[in-house]
């Protein structure tokens, strides 16, 4: 159980991945450019972190075409939602212990 929590923390303690998860947890979907604007990142940097989150099955994609241009919509998965709220709960618990 403890190692599971540590694994979650490893994914989320990075500030960019934390930002992506925060934004996706309050938006149904966001496309690549919207995330890029919000997080103020370069294409490559954002893509790397999105891939990591996809690999952990925290983020899923839906590809579509808008005006014949490919557009990828990102959204949070059920597992992503669960582990992210677990992570927030763990953080809050930790903070309370420190007080």
């Amino acid at each position, binding site marked *: 159980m403890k190692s599971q929590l540590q694994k979650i923390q490893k994914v989320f303690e990075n*500030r960019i991945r*934390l930002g992506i998860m925060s934004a996706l*947890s*309050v*938006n149904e979907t966001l496309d690549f450019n*919207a995330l890029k604007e919000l997080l103020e990142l370069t294409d490559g940097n954002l893509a790397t972190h999105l891939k990591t989150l996809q690999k952990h099955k925290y983020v899923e994609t839906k590809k579509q075409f808008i005006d014949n241009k490919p557009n990828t919509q990102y959204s949070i998965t059920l597992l992503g939602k669960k582990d992210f709220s677990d992570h*927030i709960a763990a*953080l809050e618990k930790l903070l309370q212990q420190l007080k």
Partner: protein
Amino acid sequence: MSNHLPPDQQIKAIHEMMERSTRFLHISGMAGILAGIIAIAASWIAINSFAFQPDRYTYHYTAMGGNQWNIVYLGLSTLVLSFGLGLVLARRNAYKKGSPGWSPTARRMLTYFATPLLTGGLVIFLFWLKGFVAFAAPLSLIFYGLALLHASHFTLTDIRYLGLIELFLGLVALYWIQHSLLIWAVGFGMVHIVYGLYIYLRYERNS
């Protein structure tokens, strides 16, 4: 800057990103103040220059020697000017804070704001065509209030109370139709100036 954050800063970063990705926070109080002044000027012109002062719901304005299209043009220019100022000044605020002027949050807020407003505009126009001229002032307050209430989920929460005030004034104006223009001037004029000043002092002055 390190990519790894201590717990307290993680929590802070999460809340900031949640807010930044859903709400457009750069609306302009200055635009509110200016829109208020424009609204008071417009109602003054309507009453004093165009002799527009409906005292019942059906109002044969043309029969009183006035041209009712004057009032329509006046209303539309007031709307376009105030809305335009709101857009331009909000964009400027956003640029000043280093965020893009036309972000997904701005788009979403505008969609939520514009839908009730356009519906209201059409309702007022249809009533007007059927001779129910005096519905214009109360209904514009009511639909504007609903639009603000709707948009308040995607911008500063303070806007919610502005929406409720306009909604209330609209209902009062609907009942006391003979005073509806005066109440309109209070709602779009005075309330905008006071609220604009509040937003300006609270969020803009120090930036």
